[in-house]
């Protein structure tokens, strides 16, 4: 596997950019898809956001200065794209973000691309009750086991605050699952 520095330098040269970009897509599409999917819930929306994310990565790769890891930079773009997507979808449908979230969860019951059992559905509902930052932290830590150090770069928040958010989120989810 090519190392990140080599891939990055190839991405910055016109001659090798397209080929390197294909490698980048191959390497990160799955992780980014699941990250986005957990935020936007529906597969079709996740597909749109994933496309937008990679297009943005392609257009802005020259601006990436290597201060952070390439993957954390891409995760940050994916996170921002997902949130922007949800906000504009809510505006387009003239509903609040909370209503949009509720609708997405209702659709999940009949969604052909969700085969979770009762407890998995409940967990999604519990996550949806959390404030946005806690949702992000919980999903990234609980399901993807992303290090707080990397998460701190992705979400531009201190590690301490992220740890606190995670523990609060876990407690709230536990309470929700007991109550429902």
């Amino acid at each position, binding site marked *: 596997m090519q190392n990140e520095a080599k891939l990055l330098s190839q991405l910055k040269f*016109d001659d090798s*950019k*397209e080929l390197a*970009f294909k490698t980048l*897509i191959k390497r990160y*599409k*799955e992780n980014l*898809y*699941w990250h986005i*999917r*957990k935020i936007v819930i529906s*597969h079709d929306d996740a*597909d749109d956001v*994933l*496309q937008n994310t*990679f*297009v943005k990565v*392609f*257009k802005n790769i020259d601006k990436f200065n290597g201060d952070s890891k390439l993957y954390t930079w891409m995760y940050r773009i994916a996170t921002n794209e997902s949130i922007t997507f949800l906000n504009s979808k809510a505006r387009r449908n003239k509903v609040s973000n909370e209503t949009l979230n509720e609708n997405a969860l209702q659709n999940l019951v009949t969604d052909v*691309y*969700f*085969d*979770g*059992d009762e*407890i*998995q*559905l409940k*967990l*999604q509902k519990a996550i949806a009750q959390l404030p946005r930052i806690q949702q992000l932290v919980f999903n990234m830590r*609980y*399901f993807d086991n992303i290090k707080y150090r990397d998460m701190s770069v992705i979400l531009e928040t201190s590690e301490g605050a992220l740890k606190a958010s995670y*523990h609060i989120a*876990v*407690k709230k*989810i*536990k309470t929700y*699952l007991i109550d429902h």
Partner: protein
Amino acid sequence: MSLNKIYKKIPFKVPKDYFESFYADFFIEQELKNKVQKTGFKTPEGYLNNFNVSIPKTSKVTNSRKLNKKYSFYLSGIAAVLILLFMFSMPKKDNEKISLESLENYLLNEVDQSELLSNILTMDELNDLSMFNFSYSEIESFILQNASVETLLID
């Protein structure tokens, strides 16, 4: 020296109930993970294997194209102002309709272009334009070729 004695000498303290809540948090998480580990989401068959991105064609905008773009913006503005000035300076007659053709003819033949340009642009803008070394006839032909009078009137 025994370990017990060393521990007793460590001057650090932890917040009250730190270890109790640490274990509690840990066990809550583990308990949760025992029940649910995956989201339940799935993708259409083969989606991730076949996923591809249509790479946008890199359109390299050269400096001259950038200048042309900037310049055409100026010219469109000038043309719009010329038309507006013309409309306001024409004597109004009731029920008289001005054809687009007569409007064009007036702009081409009657209006003193240089005077109008100096009226509507600041010195800085004129200097900015002058660095391109375009003559008024070039500006005029650009407007005629690139902007329709109807569009400019609508604008």
